[in-house]
């Protein structure tokens, strides 16, 4: 395990950051939440952001915050799928396939919401759980997992996730 500065990781996996912010934006649009500002990529911390109006609708908050998990994960799988077979099964090396794997894994790496996203869910889940909202109940362990995951980024767990989705899942499907 060796440490790579966050900015270099951002540069190497910039498609994932763009898709991550786009996913937030997409769910804002779908849930009719006003978008006030967007930055898809920059050399700073955070590397991207979406500023939207506050909503009291828990489902909206959940979807907007978890948007990257759904969109990035799905895109990672879709992008890696055409590249998987020639490389893994046929051992045929082609720049297009390796390019797709890089693109897919870099998108998959940024599937997990940020701690801020998790915090947004948590704040509203605390209230909703009093109404025995099932999604709110599920949100607590989910938020915990998100925090742990973001802590483990130092140990490349985000790359492991991207590889698990992009290569692991096709391996399970095709053997």
């Amino acid at each position, binding site marked *: 395990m060796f440490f790579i500065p966050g900015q270099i990781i951002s540069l190497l996996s910039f498609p994932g950051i763009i898709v991550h912010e786009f996913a937030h934006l997409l769910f804002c649009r779908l849930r009719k939440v006003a978008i006030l500002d967007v930055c898809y990529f920059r050399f700073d911390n955070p590397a991207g952001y979406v500023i939207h109006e506050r909503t009291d609708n828990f489902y909206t908050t959940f979807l907007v915050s978890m948007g990257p998990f759904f969109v990035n994960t799905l895109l990672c799988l879709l992008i890696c799928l055409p590249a998987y077979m020639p490389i893994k099964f046929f051992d045929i090396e082609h720049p*297009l396939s390796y390019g797709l794997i890089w693109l897919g894994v870099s998108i998959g790496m940024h599937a997990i919401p940020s701690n801020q996203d998790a915090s947004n869910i948590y704040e509203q889940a605390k209230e909703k759980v009093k109404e025995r909202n099932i999604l709110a109940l599920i949100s607590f362990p989910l938020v915990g997992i998100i925090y742990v995951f973001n802590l483990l980024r130092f140990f490349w767990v985000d790359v492991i996730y991207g590889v698990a989705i992009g290569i692991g899942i096709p391996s399970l499907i095709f053997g």
Partner: protein
Amino acid sequence: MRYRDCSKCDSSHLPQNETVTLDGEVYCNKCYQEVYSDKVLAQGMVAYTDFDPTVCATCGTDAGSMILSENFGRPICDDCAKKLKDKIMPLWVKAFFAAIIAIVVFSFFYNWRFYQSYSNIKKANAAFAKGDYEKATAYAKDASEEVPELEELKGIKSFYKGVFLLIKDKSVEALEELRNSKRVLQDNVAIDNLINKAKMGVGFDSKNYELFLAAAKENVELDTANAQAFVAVASAYSCIYVDKGQDSAKKFAYEYAQKALALDSTDKDIKEYANLVDYRISNKTIIKHDDFIKHFPNGWTKK
């Protein structure tokens, strides 16, 4: 800009965006904060700023009496609307996603042949396992044509075709295919065994019984516990005896047949071949195994 009066205090002519609406009543910010905000939180009531439709909620530009367009319930002037639209979905982001979609769609089409080939390989293997060597050959051929750059697939196709031809008793063509397969797949005991069987067939068909014997002995060396390999040697020796009348060949024929039966006395094929060897030697006739079974379906007994 529109103006409102506070329902509680004397404040009047307040800009609409500086008021709060609660239960249909309008209050100035001060009255709302001092009196109602805690009650609103405690009782779960809904208070909101009723945006002035003539003032841009983003830059604060007063459009006079003109009603502005809305951005999710917030009035927005044309300049801010355009800036926001350009910021939310700038051209480079559109180009980025268009490029991703184009690459993914292209890749699916470009690499589809690999998935087809994979599917055909699975079907070929399944057909081979079931003993349908003709279908296995056809699927393996398709798989190889879909990924022509992979020599291994050609080797697999040749292997399946070789087995199919061997079953059809076309030893010469089978030998060629199996040798092609070995060239690609290289060290493989199964292929060596089949090549020897093809050579045995070529030797028998061309009455070159020395070739038959040499190939049969090679199979024994590959697997000294294989009863079928021993009975094949016995079969070759029986042909040499009938062809050349060598007593040593007769002796070895019976010896190898006994060795085969010692290894496996229950296998139907082994017993049939041992019986065939005895028949050939006793009647000094070279007869194929299939013809022997047709003539003597219940086995031959020496009289």
